[in-house]
């Protein structure tokens, strides 16, 4: 094996080790699963109670489905999403997550008026209720809830209304604006932005600022390299190789 290939193998081994450690430790839970996941032209966020000036965005949608539950835990996974593009709310579960076993229940997500309980931060979008009619969540089961943020600057956290207060869930950012978390109960969910703290990354303005910083950095580096080469080495005489 040539020296160059051996160095390549070492580079692969080192970076592979870092990748493995990063993923297995959960350090990159908030990082994008892919490296060029592209944002789409999302339609404006639809508010249940729109702020002034955003009344024309339309009403948020609801979704429900009849589900034949499995007779045991686990079962077949399914996803349910509201109709916006991208969806403002989704759930991913399996037909074994619900009771009574072997029966048909109605599973749905709908936007609901904000309950009187105030979260610790700023609400980012609608409160969504995950509900099951004619059944319940199987004890011990966990499903995934995903809500889309409004695009307000900052990284929100998904919270669940339980025991009379909003409780944060371990939230994963799915770029550009979806946030998901495992949930062990039905009920109300909301994205909450922090009230204080440093300006979080991820908002639209932060992206532009980062682009300006990175672009400027690369341009300056390029210009610097060009300049030192220009001044260090004058044009060589013709015919010399």
């Amino acid at each position: 094996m040539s020296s160059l290939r051996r160095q390549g193998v070492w580079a692969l081994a080192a970076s592979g080790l870092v990748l493995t450690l990063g993923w297995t430790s959960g350090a990159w839970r908030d990082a994008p699963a892919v490296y060029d996941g592209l944002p789409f032209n999302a339609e404006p966020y639809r508010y249940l109670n729109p702020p002034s000036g955003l009344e024309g965005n339309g009403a948020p949608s609801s979704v429900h489905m009849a589900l034949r539950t499995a007779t045991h835990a686990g079962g077949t996974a399914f996803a349910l999403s509201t109709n916006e593009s991208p969806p403002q709310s989704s759930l991913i579960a399996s037909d074994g997550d619900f009771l009574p076993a072997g029966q048909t229940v109605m599973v749905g997500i709908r936007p609901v008026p904000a309950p009187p309980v105030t979260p610790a931060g700023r609400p980012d979008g609608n409160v969504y209720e995950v509900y099951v009619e004619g059944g319940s969540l199987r004890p011990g089961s966990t499903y995934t809830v995903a809500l889309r943020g409004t695009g307000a600057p900052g990284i929100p956290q998904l919270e669940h209304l339980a025991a009379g207060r909003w409780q944060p869930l371990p939230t994963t950012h799915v770029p550009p604006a979806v946030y998901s978390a495992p949930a062990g109960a039905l009920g109300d969910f909301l994205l909450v932005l922090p009230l204080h703290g440093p300006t979080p990354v991820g908002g639209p303005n932060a992206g532009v600022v980062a682009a300006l910083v990175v672009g400027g950095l690369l341009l300056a580096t390029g210009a610097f390299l060009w300049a030192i080469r220009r001044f260090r080495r004058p044009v060589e005489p013709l015919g010399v190789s």
Partner: protein
Amino acid sequence: MIALDPTAGPGEQRRRGPVRPGAILAVLGAAVLARSLVAGSAPWSPAAAWAAVGVLMAGGGWAARRWWAPAGAPLRAEHRLAPSLGPWRHRGRAWAWGGFGALGLVLGPVAHRWADPPGPHGGQVVAWGATVTAVVFAEETFLRGALWKAVTEAHGPQAALVVTTVAFALMHVPLYGWHVLPLDLAVGAWLGGLRMVSGSVLAPTLAHLVADWAAW
């Protein structure tokens, strides 16, 4: 090192050298800046902005190539931006390394993110897929093709690995934020390792493409 062609006229002599790393980094920086400007102006969608970046990067690479090797002058192998794919037996090795690299990039996210909401659907898939593919080819041609070759000629392959890894990580910051810098540094090193071990830009391109497509 500037390699001069004794058959060229005086006006062409200075342009016969290999592409400079500084020129490529400058074009890369301009592309990142352009993305921020384009993405911030309606009615462009972010996907269109990224497509524009891909075009700009590919066009910048082509322009740099023409600048350093004027029209009418045959490109010598050492002046090519994207290295030759090489003979078929080497391409087979590059494909194999690319497949291995794709597996390495996809395994982690799939193991940890399988329950994420589904990716693009319906009519979005075509636009998304085309844009992802264009961006991947542009990035790889630029980073592991042009920049890699330029830095290798100036400072050696180890420097090329470091420079392309840092550039790859930095150019993704505007989209994802600074918190993904460690991940993209590791991915950049992984792709650079594939480039180094396979001797071709084909392997990192394949791995990169499969990893991005895995989002669907």
